[in-house]
């Protein structure tokens, strides 16, 4: 029986933000894109900056992000979002330009645009979703694929002699003078989602204060590409991704808060399988 009480405004406990549209998302069940979209949209709503927000969508699974965010959006060519954002933010210095990019887009084909936008200290926010794989094209090796991790183009696991080392681009951009806030988050548990949302809020606030480049990595799963259930993928990420891509702040207020030893990049961890 319908309970009249729950529709009363005073009993409202949760409402989907209006900064997300009602378009049904195309993401796979278990994919964290939806959650990451939501926390970004919620921060935009809470800060009252919907009319100042301009998003840049990448090429990859989140290419259609523009259908889900109820803000003005531009769809970039593969990897070029930071170049678009640089120009847009310079032309609209009081707006909130942000990019939303995957690991292939940001850390492979778009490496130059990423590095130079960060180095110039463009007053933009870069949201970087790292699931260690090319999701949309069918699970090929990405720059962030772990050593030993199978993918469509590394069917027997990534090999350093063939494919080189995984690229820790977040540690790399933290070294650049233009970045102000660099952090690595995830959306794998409710607690992580809350932390990630606080990081998103901090990035938008820093941008409002014109502090320079804000860079947030979200370590993520791709259960379809990884060929796991969502629950398995989440656990696999915790077991295997987090030791390599350690969560937490790397740079705060322009100061490195977690030193990076390049030798750590060469540590090969045996991948743990998850049942």
């Amino acid at each position, binding site marked *: 029986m319908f309970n009249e009480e729950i529709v009363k405004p005073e009993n409202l406990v949760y409402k989907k933000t209006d900064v997300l*549209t009602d378009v049904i998302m195309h993401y796979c069940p278990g994919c964290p894109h939806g959650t990451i979209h939501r926390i970004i949209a919620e921060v935009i709503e809470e800060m009252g900056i*919907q*009319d*100042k*927000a*301009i998003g*840049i*969508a990448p090429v990859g699974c989140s*290419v*259609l992000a*523009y*259908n889900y*965010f*109820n*803000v*003005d*959006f*531009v*769809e*970039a*060519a593969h990897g*070029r979002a930071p*170049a*678009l*954002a*640089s*120009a*847009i933010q*310079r*032309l*609209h210095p009081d*707006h909130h330009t942000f990019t939303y990019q995957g690991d292939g887009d940001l850390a492979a084909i778009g490496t*130059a*645009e990423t590095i*130079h936008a960060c180095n110039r200290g463009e007053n933009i926010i870069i949201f970087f979703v790292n699931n260690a794989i090319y999701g949309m094209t069918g699970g090929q090796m990405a720059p962030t694929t772990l050593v030993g991790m199978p993918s469509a183009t590394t069917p027997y696991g990534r090999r350093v002699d063939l494919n080189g080392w995984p690229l820790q681009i977040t540690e790399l951009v933290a070294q650049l003078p233009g970045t102000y806030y660099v952090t690595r988050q995830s959306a794998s548990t409710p607690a992580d989602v809350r932390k990630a949302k606080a990081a998103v809020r901090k990035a938008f606030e820093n941008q409002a204060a014109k502090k320079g480049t804000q860079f947030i990595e979200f370590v993520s799963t791709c259960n379809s590409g990884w060929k796991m259930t969502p629950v398995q993928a989440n656990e696999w990420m915790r077991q295997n991704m987090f030791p390599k891509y350690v969560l937490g702040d790397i740079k705060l207020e322009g100061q490195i808060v977690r030193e990076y030893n390049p030798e750590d990049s060469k540590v090969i961890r045996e991948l743990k399988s998850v049942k």
Partner: protein
Amino acid sequence: MAKELKLMKGNEAIAEAAIRSGCDGYFGYPITPQSEVMEHLMAEMPWEKTGMVVLQAESEVASINMVYGGAATGKKVMTSSSSPGMSLMQEGVTYLAGAELPCLLVNVMRGGPGLGTIQPSQADYFQTVKGGGHGDYQLYTLAPASVQEMYDFVFKAWDIAFKYRNPVMILSDGAIGQVMEKVYVGDYVPRWTDEEIAKNAPWAAFGKPASRDHNIVTSLELDSAKQEKHNHRFQAKYREMEKNDTLYEEIMCEDADYVFVAYGSCARIAHKAVQIARDKGIKVGLLRPITLFPFPTQPIKALAQRVKGILTVEMSAGQMVYDVKLASEFKCPVEYFGRYGGIIPTPQEVVEALENKLIKG
């Protein structure tokens, strides 16, 4: 409008016109022979005069995508480059065309292929008017033949770009870019206000007010039926350009037995060749396409029906000649003469080619 006379390089005239035409942003990367465009802008510091943004990008790939970003927000933005750099930009150019973004591109052509030479050339005709990037698209293409036209066409470009929501190319060459000539410059046209942008570019992504739905700028449409419809609309737009905005100039064509067809620097050379030939008693005229797309097909067709032959003069191995042949509907012989790889033809060579290929032949 108050006019001021200046002595300028073609490249400097592009930059000066950008500032004075209300351009909002220039994004570029150095390459010879067009580097004076950004150098002039950086020296003039237009951000202090008009609020115009100037940014030296890390590559041509970045600069064309900065143009894409700026154009997506309804701003008047531009870039310039030369042939190898313009090749790098082609991905961005087709995205601009696909997302229907008004903007200005300037190619100060140099000899190729590959790294080629830094001397003048017109060998990017095919790249510019037949595609360059992937997909069915066209750039409205202006071909200046003087420093004055380098200046004037920047103003013209904004009108056309926003009229059709389409990128406009100024296809110049190293000779026009580097030569110094007198040029009349006009008053500063103010940059558009936010209100003017909202009115003139209501489709743009400049921040969503509560009063409208969110604007999306994209060239993606996964539904093929819709993608074909998009393409139909593009083609209709290109036909409108052909109908309404084809530009050309005819010089001494009224009594001509033969006609040169040449654009840009080659039009200047061919104009001199007209005088030399007429001194020798050969009645020659010149048709100068000012727009390369849309191409002046109809006037060439009309000339072909009454002259004894047409000679195209190009700094390429023969590219525009195909469009002239098609336009002529083969009513008269159409021949090509050109020098390339950075060599500029002399008027004497042009007259000799006319005699050898059309009169004696």
